[in-house]
């Protein structure tokens, strides 16, 4: 079995398995280094976005203005919070997982275009800096959706222009990355791996990349006009001169509804891997999961106006309501397939699995509130209230972020070669899970009671619920540091993981941890079904792999009995 890969100009062949900090701080064309660069950059911005969230919740502890100097300052908080979380945390983090994992899962040496890959990453730090420097020029304050005339006539500061340019750069980065994924997945699969033998994470990255290359250029077009309105005196969106503010909303949502799937589809892919590996069971409905991603990618382009029900021509409401309800179907198919996957499995309740299950449970709530919002009669009442804020945090935090956590616990041993501490992982999970719920669930009630979103002061009767939300959010913020501490602790302790600690069948585990510069020691042989757990053949395959690559935790060294609870020992594979 041969791997296929293009020549790799300029790749540094460093010492086998040795991680050097310096390699991560400079230009590199190794997809593994780039993947880590994406992830670390994204985590940095996650902390910034999180700090802003804390500021928002502190402000909302009481009905009066407490933290923000005025309404404008508050507008800047949530504008930067939303933008940073979406464009500098979730999207780059998912790109990081994709970069690290896709070539490995395909048994390839690198992405199709290593140089382009590095270039796409290096657009992100300057964009992030530009975004944040806006603080000194009158920070952006029109929300992450940047609706004109707020983002044009009512945002004097240059920060709003810098915001738009930064988003432009981030969009370009995202498109270049996606082009690379599509070419890599199409052309660099090893012999014997057809599309329907690919790991589901690779399918998810393919669907995501297709959405990115088709939708993000629309954002580029819209932003060009917005920037021209701000700096060149055009009046596309200026109602005072006959411009049309709804034009922006249409263009923006034509990009941004698909973009919500850009943020969550990779998470779906990670979930399929995590659930199957740690339930020791074949994925239920492989084709249904793979193809429903494609269905989502397609239908996702037909629902954008559900964000504009209140401003839309009334006759168009019903068609968009119908398409929005239809898009819940492929999502539902996935949910049932995942339940089928863990059903009757030998579940290991480790941190990765817990976060996987956390995703599953919380994302369902977000999906249901999504369908509620898709119902026009309901949406007309709760549009622009905290109900919407609750909905999208259930899908983006309960979905994307919990998936990212599951992914971190699952692939950390591969990336670093060391194990994360499981007890800390469980603390992290339970604190996050519970405080997440109490941060975002009461927002449904606040919304239905009529509390609008994007306000710094509110009616006194909303105080009790808001205080609950704020206190829970502080716990949520603090719980994140358990993960960060765990990461540092793991890197210092260096408890060895070995090549395949979870006894997984996908190819990224068929090499040492971390993998050598060109990923594999020879040509890796993919197992015929990447999820064929619980069979005699899979057991033999894993045995042969262990004989070749060496042992992994928990057999690597004698573990204290505590760490070897029955549920965490590899069994039946």
């Amino acid at each position, binding site marked *: 079995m041969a791997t296929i*890969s293009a020549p790799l100009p300029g790749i540094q062949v460093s010492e086998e398995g040795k991680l050097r900090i310096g390699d991560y701080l400079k230009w590199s064309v190794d997809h593994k280094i780039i993947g880590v660069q994406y992830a670390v950059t994204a985590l940095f911005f996650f902390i910034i976005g999180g700090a802003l969230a804390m500021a928002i919740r502190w402000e909302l502890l009481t009905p009066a203005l407490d933290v923000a100097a005025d309404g404008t300052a508050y507008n800047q908080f949530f504008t930067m919070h939303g933008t940073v979380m979406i464009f500098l945390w979730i999207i780059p983090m998912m790109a990081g997982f994709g970069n690290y994992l896709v070539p490995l899962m395909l048994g390839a040496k690198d992405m*199709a275009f290593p140089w382009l890959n590095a270039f796409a990453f290096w657009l992100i730090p300057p964009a992030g800096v530009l975004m944040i420097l806006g603080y000194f020029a009158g920070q952006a304050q029109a929300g992450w959706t940047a609706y004109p005339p707020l983002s044009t006539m009512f945002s004097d500061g240059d920060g709003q222009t810098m915001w738009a340019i930064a988003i432009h750069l981030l969009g370009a980065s995202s498109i270049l990355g996606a082009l690379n994924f599509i070419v890599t997945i199409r052309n660099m699969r090893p012999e014997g791996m057809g599309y329907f033998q690919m790991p589901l994470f690779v399918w998810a990255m393919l669907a995501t990349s297709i959405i990115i*290359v*088709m939708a993000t*250029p629309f954002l580029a077009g819209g932003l060009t006009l917005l920037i021209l309105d701000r700096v060149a005196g*055009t009046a*596309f969106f200026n109602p005072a001169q006959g411009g*049309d503010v709804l034009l922006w909303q249409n263009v923006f949502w034509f990009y941004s509804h698909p973009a919500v799937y850009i943020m969550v589809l990779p998470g779906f892919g990670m979930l399929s891997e995590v659930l199957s590996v740690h339930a020791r069971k074949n994925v239920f409905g492989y084709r249904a999961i793979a193809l429903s991603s494609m269905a989502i990618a397609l239908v996702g382009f037909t629902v954008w106006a559900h964000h504009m029900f209140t401003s839309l021509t009334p006759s168009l409401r019903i068609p968009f309501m119908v398409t929005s309800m239809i898009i819940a179907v492929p999502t539902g198919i996935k949910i049932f397939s995942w339940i089928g996957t863990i059903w009757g499995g030998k579940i290991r309740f480790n941190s990765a699995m817990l976060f996987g299950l956390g995703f599953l449970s919380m994302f369902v709530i977000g999906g249901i509130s999504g369908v509620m919002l898709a119902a026009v009669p309901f949406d007309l009442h709760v549009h622009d209230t905290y109900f919407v804020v609750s909905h999208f945090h259930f899908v983006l935090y309960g979905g994307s972020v919990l998936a990212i956590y599951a992914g971190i616990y699952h692939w950390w041993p591969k990336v670093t070669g060391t194990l994360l501490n499981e007890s800390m992982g469980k603390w992290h999970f339970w604190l996050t899970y519970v405080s997440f719920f109490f941060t975002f669930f009461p927002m449904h009630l606040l919304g239905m009671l009529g509390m609008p979103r994007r306000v710094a002061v509110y009616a006194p009767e909303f105080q009790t619920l808001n205080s609950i939300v704020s206190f829970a959010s502080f716990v949520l913020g603090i719980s994140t540091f358990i993960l960060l501490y765990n990461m540092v602790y793991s890197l210092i302790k260096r408890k060895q993981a070995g090549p395949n600690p979870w006894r997984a069948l996908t190819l990224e585990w068929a090499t040492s941890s971390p993998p050598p510069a060109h990923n594999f020691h020879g040509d890796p042989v993919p197992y015929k079904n990447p999820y064929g757990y619980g069979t005699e053949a899979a057991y033999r395959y894993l045995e042969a792999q262990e004989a070749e690559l060496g042992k992994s935790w928990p057999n690597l060294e004698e573990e204290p009995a505590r760490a070897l609870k029955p549920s965490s020992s590899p069994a039946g594979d």
Partner: protein
Amino acid sequence: MTQQISPMPERKLTRDEVIALKNKRTLVTVFQISWIMVFVCLAVVAIQIRGTSGPLPALNAIQVIVPLGATLALLGSVWTAWQSLKAIQADQRARFFVFWRYTLVLGGAFILVMLAVMAFNPYGDLLQYSQIFRVMVVYHALHALVIGAWMVQVYRNAAQGAYGSSDAWGVEAGAKLWYFVVIAWVLFYAVLYVF
């Protein structure tokens, strides 16, 4: 999508080189499909603006014929670019130079004429429509100029002896990106002048 234009030359390539070439071809194709969406976006915006801005002024004969002529020149450049690509792949260098020169001249003429048309913007009375008209022409011209610059570079490389039947990628990329410029313009032309 990645058609083999001639089966002969690639026989000499190594396996890795074949894949590298395949990758580059896929990249250009997917890039074209992706980036055309910006032009679609601007075209849709133009249609929308026309819907709200009331009837457009009637164009006089010159205002119709000049852009039509430029567009026909651009369409002609598709054929010349294709001829020169075929020529270099068959190692007919002289023929390649002739047709590549035609392509550059036709493309250059198109850009100049359209920029002039834009300068004499016929929609001055309709604020948003005249602005989107300018944006579209300039946005397109920027792409034409950048890709045109690459095509000039290809010409200079070829003059130094680069490219041949076994290595025509630079020419192929230039030609395919030029097709992109043409398709993008046909879309704009249809929106601005036909429908």
